[in-house]
């Protein structure tokens, strides 16, 4: 690089800096006001409590996604027979078991006998 290029570079850099500084000084009041508000908003971050729990958000999300994936790829689970009072009633009220209702006293006696037998054993 020769001396004239060095001088030219220095002049270009100096002029660029000068033009830049003038454009900075010429910023309008509305822009300066917005910058001031932006600065105040940033400074409010200092007074906010540290949200440590937020640090765990990605890990928690990942864990939840892995769990979902595991359940999704495990295939259909075995269907358990649901033993609820409603299903019991449905069975009881079906036509095939209507005789059971008629012999309700007998079954009640049978249960009592079984319970007494168990207590004798214990």
């Amino acid at each position, binding site marked *: 690089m020769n001396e004239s290029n060095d001088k030219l570079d220095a002049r270009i850099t100096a002029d*660029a800096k000068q033009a830049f500084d003038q*454009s900075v000084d*010429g910023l309008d009041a509305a822009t*300066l006001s917005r*910058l001031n508000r932006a600065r105040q*908003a*940033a*400074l409010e*971050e200092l007074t906010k409590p540290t949200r440590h729990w937020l640090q765990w958000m990605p890990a928690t999300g990942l864990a939840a996604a892995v769990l979902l994936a595991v359940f999704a790829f495990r295939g259909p689970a075995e269907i358990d027979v649901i033993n609820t009072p409603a299903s019991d009633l449905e069975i009881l009220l079906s036509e095939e078991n209507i005789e059971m209702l008629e012999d309700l006293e007998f079954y009640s006696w049978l249960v009592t006998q079984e319970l007494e037998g168990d207590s004798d054993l214990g």
Partner: protein
Amino acid sequence: MTAGTVNFAVSCDESQTGARTLHQARQFDQFLAEVERRALRIAEMGVRDRDEALDLVQDAMIKLVRNYSARRSEEWAPLFYRILQNGVRDWHRRQAVRRRVMAWFPKAKSDDNDYDAIAAAPDPAGRTPDEELQNSEAMRDMESAVHELPTRQREAFMLRTFEGLNVAGTAVAMGCSEGSVKTHYSRAIHALREKLGEHYQ
């Protein structure tokens, strides 16, 4: 330790923490006030839109205070510009995606009748319209020459020349080695000499 001593210790801790926060807030306020206008112009030269540049500067300020308040104040300038440059790069990526998406939709008609009273207001520095024109023309030529530089060269030139960061600080801000900064800066100067040199003949 008695209950009274504990209370006194806690209140001392709280007052010390409060004083530290206040001192830190003053330091940040001073730093941001000093850097904000140049940062805005640098961001504006990167995205060529003042509103977008203002948003990027605000994001950079918030991220700096939120994430780097524990760092020494000497490190703030390079970190701040690193956040800002990342923001500018992300903005360009988003714009590229948006352009690809919007290419599928017909263009909406622009409204040319918008009158910006703030832009039309007199210069607060009291310069004459001629001076303003001369300055704005010089700035426009220089700005377009700088904008045409490849991204890394532009970043190196703006951070070194406009913000006055040293090579090490520029390297932190750009996330590269000091050698790379020197190379990018040298190439930027060479390209500007090629583009603007004829104005100096």
